[in-house]
């Protein structure tokens, strides 16, 4: 079964049809997708700005990252779940859009960047995180995160514009 066939099945499923045709449910899920975005990317940007020494440079990185981590991870979970529902509701149209795959690609790259940061720097955060100016590669990880998540949002917002003409 090809990706396009799977998407057609999802699109025509009871869930897909129900979501697409619902009056309140679809905008409600889109609203939740935005709230999830605020929690995840919105809070992550503060961490990135701390890595760049712009936000609360007097505070060790761990003191910004640790208390925000559960919130931004919950935000990513909310964005992910609502994103899957939004995809199912329009799967047949979305799966043929190159911009959708760009979005997934940027998400994957942002994930790899976060994973690399966690493995390389995150585990010994207390040994380097107190300095106001951080190592170049740490700052680079911050810029990369900011850039990639911005691209994810841009690609995501373009989906309906490039899809429903």
């Amino acid at each position, binding site marked *: 079964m090809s990706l396009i066939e799977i998407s057609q099945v999802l699109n025509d499923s009871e869930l897909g049809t129900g979501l697409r045709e619902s009056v309140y449910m679809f905008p409600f899920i889109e*609203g939740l997708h*935005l*709230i999830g975005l605020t929690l995840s*990317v919105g809070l992550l940007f503060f961490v990135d700005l701390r890595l760049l020494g712009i*936000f*609360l440079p007097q505070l060790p990185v761990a003191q910004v990252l640790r208390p*925000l981590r559960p919130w931004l991870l919950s935000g990513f979970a909310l964005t992910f779940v609502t994103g899957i529902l939004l995809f199912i509701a329009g799967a047949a149209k979305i799966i043929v859009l190159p911009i959708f795959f760009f979005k997934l690609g940027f998400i994957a790259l942002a994930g790899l960047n976060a994973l690399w940061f966690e493995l390389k720097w995150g585990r010994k955060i207390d040994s380097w995180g107190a300095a106001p100016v951080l190592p170049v590669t740490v700052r680079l990880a911050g810029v990369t995160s900011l850039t990639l998540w911005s691209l994810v949002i841009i690609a995501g917002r373009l989906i309906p514009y490039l899809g429903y003409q």
Partner: protein
Amino acid sequence: MSILELFNSIQTSALARFIGSLNHLYCAFMELVHITGMLMLLSSLLLTSLNLLGLGLSNVPIQVLKQSTFRLFWWGLGLLILSGLFIFIPAASSYYPNDFFWAKFILIGLGLLTYLTLYRTVTNAVKPDKWLANITGVLVLSLWLGVAFAGRFIGFF
């Protein structure tokens, strides 16, 4: 002049016709600016509210957090108003009968009022009363999240 007549004349103005003649990706660009503004405004409120509710960054004094985020709130609001106007102008009349459009502006009014009174008082206090801080956090977040939801609903009705 009634509000509907005002909206009609906005939509038939030269500026509205100029915007209407632009490529549809112009609208996508304006919406991206709107989302950027929303992220700036909401995430700065979220950050301070987590502190007010004792749910995160509790080790940072609220005054410090407020000081490092309030510019983001106002810049975000500025971007929202500017992009919002450019989204509104070419289709002004169609927003008139939309209940969510009016609900959004009532919520913005209440959100700003709370921000400028309760929120300002609490975040300027050295040690704000715990209950007042909690109520402020819940109120400010609910109102501005309500604005975001109402905004998202406008496009569907």
